[in-house]
């Protein structure tokens, strides 16, 4: 019944009328394409609701002018080249208050990321399930942002100090390109360019390019990275000897998925990576090497057998 494969290959040209008369006769001899033709004629009359360009254009301009704090256009490249450790950053405890009506709020949901350009041209890439706020009023006198979650910072060099406030311990950082991950369970700073100073009550560490620290039981543990940018910016999460329960927590930040990891697996150590844009593939790369049987159901629920 079916066409030979080489006939199927001609269907695009058949549709666009690019076949010669002979080719078409030959093709149609092999298969009755009348039904297909009739269905396509019908499809050709289908349409999508037209867009209200005027009102959506107004909406766009409103969003544009209220989201980009200065409306100033900056190019990324010069910032990346600022390698010297000139910017000073302070990460301090704060209580998410002292807001004013000029507060700029950014928040990302599961699996979302957002690029934020600050009035000074510094660029922040906000990872999934993260929040970043700053006050335009306060900004006039000090460069201060508040972060919860994970973000990559490329800070433009200025005389004025750049401060990042998080919920974690008091840490002071100086540097130009770095990643901060801060949640109730974790705190981590990775320096990708320049140098970064991290200070807590008990530690004072200066990180150069490729150096990183993580807060473990209220002490800073150093480690290194060969990467040039955070893994999440490249669309995946990387792990080395990390308890599986934490890996699953991380997975939930990028996918709307219902998953209850059985107790017996939670402390198994995982080394590997998962991608952020394909749930089935991500699950495979986590559980297959661990030899754990699981099943992804249609409602994005993961069952373990």
């Amino acid at each position, binding site marked *: 019944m079916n066409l030979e494969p080489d006939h199927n290959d001609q269907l*695009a040209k058949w549709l666009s009328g690019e076949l010669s008369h002979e080719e078409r006769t030959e093709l149609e001899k092999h298969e009755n394409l009348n039904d297909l033709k009739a269905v396509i004629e019908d499809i050709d009359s289908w*349409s999508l609701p037209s867009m209200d360009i005027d009102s959506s254009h107004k909406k766009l301009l409103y969003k544009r002018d209220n989201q980009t704090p200065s409306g100033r256009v900056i190019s990324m490249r010069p910032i990346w080249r600022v390698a010297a450790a000139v910017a000073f950053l302070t990460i301090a405890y704060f209580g998410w208050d002292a807001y004013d009506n000029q507060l700029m709020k950014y928040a990302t949901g599961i699996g979302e990321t957002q690029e934020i350009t600050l009035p000074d041209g510094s660029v922040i890439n906000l990872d999934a399930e993260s929040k970043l706020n700053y006050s335009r009023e306060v900004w006039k006198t000090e460069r201060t942002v508040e972060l919860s979650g994970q973000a990559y910072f490329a800070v433009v060099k200025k005389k004025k100090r750049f401060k990042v406030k998080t919920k974690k311990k008091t840490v002071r950082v100086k540097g130009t390109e770095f990643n901060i991950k801060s949640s109730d369970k974790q705190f981590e700073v990775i320096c990708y360019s320049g140098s970064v100073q991290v200070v807590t009550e008990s530690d004072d560490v200066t990180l150069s390019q490729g150096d990183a620290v993580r807060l473990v039981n209220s002490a800073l543990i150093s480690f290194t990275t060969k990467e040039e940018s955070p893994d999440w910016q490249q669309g995946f999460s990387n792990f080395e000897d990390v308890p599986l329960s934490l890996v699953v927590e991380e997975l939930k930040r990028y996918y709307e998925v219902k998953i209850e990891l059985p107790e017996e697996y939670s402390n198994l150590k995982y080394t590997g990576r998962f991608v952020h844009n394909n749930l089935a593939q991500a699950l495979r790369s986590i559980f297959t090497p661990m030899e754990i049987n699981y099943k992804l159901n249609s409602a994005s629920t993961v069952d373990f057998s």
Partner: protein
Amino acid sequence: MQDQSICEESRYSEIYSQQAEKLRNFLYYKCGDLAKAEDLAQETFLKLWKKCAEVAYESVVGFLYTVAKRLFLDLVRSEKVILKFEKSLLPNMNSEDPLFQLRTEEFREQVEKAISDLPDGQREAFLLNRIDKLTYSEIADKLEISHTAVEKRISKALARLKDDIVELKKRKI
């Protein structure tokens, strides 16, 4: 070149009115959610504004589609794509007509579902061709793939659609 700048409000608006709906359709074929497609289209235009000084007017369409594709990839697609189109009224036909069976509301819905179920690449190429009336070369430019790749996708989509029609007709009888 200065007067060609996308940072000019009038030029930016002009690009919006020319491109917004096409871009929205393109995103709709990818995600199957009209509201989400409009949001993504808006977000794409916000990015264009941010980069307006760097993007040359000639390459603005390429920029829009590249950014839109990336934004779409950032979104998680756990749910299935279900596309819905506005359709013309069915012509009055008598049941003697050989095409009668293909001209029922139910059959149309099943074709719509069959198209939704096509692999992403095939579905995009096919719909850009049939609904947005783009030529294969125009599709190749938009998707940044070769002309041959577009033909392959369309051919595969048609072959599959053809088999689906045969199946659907059998099911009826």
